[in-house]
């Protein structure tokens, strides 16, 4: 009796231990791959298909919020365990993780360089290091800029509502500010723009060098473009034409639902966020048009493979498949995430795509055109440390706590510290 008891306890313990250590090869002998993602990559159906055609592979998606994703990944890389087999790296932080590339598999080892021509050149370059010798990640989507506006609020302010004519209102950001003045004069109770921070980000994303020069040296204090972008955004804030909202926060959602702002800069991926925040009641009220100042890129991600994973080869095959042109096209049709591959966004079917929620705007055409003309900003290794400093500075201006000049001085000092 007691021997049997001891035996069963030992067996249970052994099972627990095995279950605890395993994880990468399931009991059924399948190779288990995990995908560490944030927000919606539109992979649900694709993954099911992949598992159906690869009977020896089992895939698990782990979705968390983006910020949590980055922090988690950093600790997992530091600890040497716990990271998913494939992890998504967002454009804003990819340069930061590039500095720790020894924690990742060089995808060139599996022949990733042969795929180079699929992507827009700049997208490919963002995911590589050492002059293209080290391939850190394969590009998923991109975030070429558009500008979303509430047509009904524009009508109320006596502005044109047709997207082509709205685009003509603001060839430059200075023109955009003029429209803001007109709008505020007619409709004082509605803010023209959600937050100066998004405007600032968009203007800066239209320059080739922001806080860092292409040799990764810190140039924020001498780069006029940063100052100009800051001043233009801060001016909107000083005049009280912004909602002073935290972008994509709960307050932002509420403001969308209440219709308390009329425009927001929107990369392709932001359409889904606007739709979710504004809800069905605002269907057809929002529209998309060309952003002032030309093309720019905000966001978009890469799939990378941490070295600690047990099945880098299988993980690579999956990442390669998920980022292949056919899949990117399908994802665009399903979620609206803009493909980072010229062949795909030039595709007739993609170009013809309209978004019904946004007054049937031809989003395929708008974002693809914007993608063609965009000059991607070089992201320095410490970009993600420096950038937020200017964002909070703009919030201080919007809150009326500081003058634009004081906020700029403080931000520059903090940024210089962060760039050290």
């Amino acid at each position: 009796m007691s021997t049997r008891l001891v035996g069963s306890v030992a067996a249970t313990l052994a099972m627990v231990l095995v279950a605890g250590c395993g994880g990468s090869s399931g009991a059924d002998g399948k190779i288990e791959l995990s995908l560490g993602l944030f927000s919606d990559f539109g992979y649900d159906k694709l993954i099911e298909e992949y598992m159906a055609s690869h009977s020896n592979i089992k895939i698990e998606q782990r979705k968390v919020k983006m910020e949590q994703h980055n922090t988690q990944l950093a600790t997992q890389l530091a600890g040497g365990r716990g990271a998913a087999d494939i992890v998504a790296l967002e454009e804003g932080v990819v340069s930061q993780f590039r500095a720790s590339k020894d924690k990742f598999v060089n995808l060139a080892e599996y022949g990733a360089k042969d795929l180079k021509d699929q992507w827009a050149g700049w997208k490919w370059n963002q995911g590589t290091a050492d002059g293209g010798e080290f391939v850190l990640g394969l590009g998923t989507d991109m975030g070429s800029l558009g500008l979303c506006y509430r047509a009904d609020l524009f009508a109320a302010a006596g502005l044109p509502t047709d997207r082509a004519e709205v685009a003509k209102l603001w060839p430059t950001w200075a023109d955009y500010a003029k429209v803001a003045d007109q709008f505020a004069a007619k409709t004082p109770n509605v803010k023209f723009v959600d937050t100066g921070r998004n405007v600032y980000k968009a203007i800066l994303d239209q320059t080739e060098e922001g806080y860092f020069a292409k040799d990764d040296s810190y140039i924020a204090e001498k780069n006029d473009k940063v100052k100009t972008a800051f001043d233009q955004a801060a001016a909107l804030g000083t005049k009280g034409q912004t909602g002073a909202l935290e972008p994509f926060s709960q307050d932002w959602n509420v403001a969308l639902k209440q219709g308390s702002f009329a425009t927001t800069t929107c990369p392709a991926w932001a359409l889904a966020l606007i739709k979710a925040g504004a809800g069905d009641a605002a269907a057809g009220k929002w529209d998309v048009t060309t952003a002032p100042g030309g093309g720019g890129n905000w966001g978009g991600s890469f799939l990378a493979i941490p070295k600690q994973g047990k099945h880098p080869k299988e993980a690579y095959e999956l990442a390669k498949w998920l980022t292949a042109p056919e899949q990117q096209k399908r994802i665009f049709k399903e979620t609206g995430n803009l493909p980072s591959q010229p062949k795909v966004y030039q595709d007739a079917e993609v170009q013809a795509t309209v978004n019904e929620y946004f007054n049937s705007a031809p989003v395929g055409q708008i974002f693809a055109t914007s993608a063609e003309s965009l000059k991607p900003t070089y992201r320095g290794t410490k970009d993600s440390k420096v950038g937020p400093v200017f964002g909070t500075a703009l919030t201080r201006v919007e809150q009326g706590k500081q003058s634009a000049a004081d906020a700029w001085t403080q931000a520059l000092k903090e940024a210089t510290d962060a760039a050290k």
Partner: protein
Amino acid sequence: MTVTRPETEVAPAASVSPSKEPPKRFRLSNWDARYTPYLIIAPFFLVFGIFGLYPLIYTAWVSLHDWQLIDGDQGFIGLDNYVTLFGDANFWNALFNTLSLFVLSTVPQLLAALGLAALLDRGLRGSAFWRAGVLLPNVISVAAVALVFAQFFGRDFGIVNFLLGFVGIDPIDWRAETWASHLAVSTMVMWRWTGYNALLYLAAMQSVPKDMYESATLDGAGRWRMFWSITVPSIRPTILFTVVTSTIGGLQLFAEPALFDPGFAANNSTGGSDRQFQTLVLYMYEKGFRLFDAGYAATVAWMLFVVVLIVAVVNFTLTRRIAGKG
């Protein structure tokens, strides 16, 4: 232990065996009496050693290095991190915020808890309902509480500003002003912990001998006098306990201010646009998990440890003196 215990003399005589060795059973029970208590509390110290002491010492070790979160140790730099910290205005700001939030939330909280406990102690109808009720806020997840309060204190559509509007007060931007943000965050903390402390006080109050109140009543003492002269001094140990635990908890405030900041979900949470409500733990988080500077974050963590230690000792002595006057 040079003193021979009487049993040592008695035991051999009671033994059946003529051998000179003390009997096995006795040796066992002696060992048992001497070491079992240590054995029983050992798991605690073992667990504390692994999860408390080791991280503490390791953190100290990390704080002496240039240590990046992902890439690890970049070299020993001695006390450089501490030198930087003492000249870091953001650290002092975070320390001020932490202490301010601590005082703003703990003092009213414990006083309210005392009052609440006194009320509950008077034998209300349906006492179990009320007692469970005051604990309810503590049971609800802090994230849920913070989300709800963050909406209450919304600038544009918050219910607090809406209500203030009725008495003619202009909408307050709760996240922009230091005092307003501290008030809002403290409210959250008070909401969560007042009931919990009230229950602790209530338990202590119920063990105060009733005859003391009876004789005080005969002497003509009022309720107020009895409360301060009998109840409070009698529950002194519990008050000390709550003061120390809320000191530790209050100085480590994180979730409430973090979730109060709408930027926390994004990459730029600094506890307000100008660090209006950034506590020490939030600052540590910013350094460690947003800027990936683990060495500096460890330094902040150690300073926090020292601050908690100092404040806890000060509070302990102060409270003992105040509550002891009675």
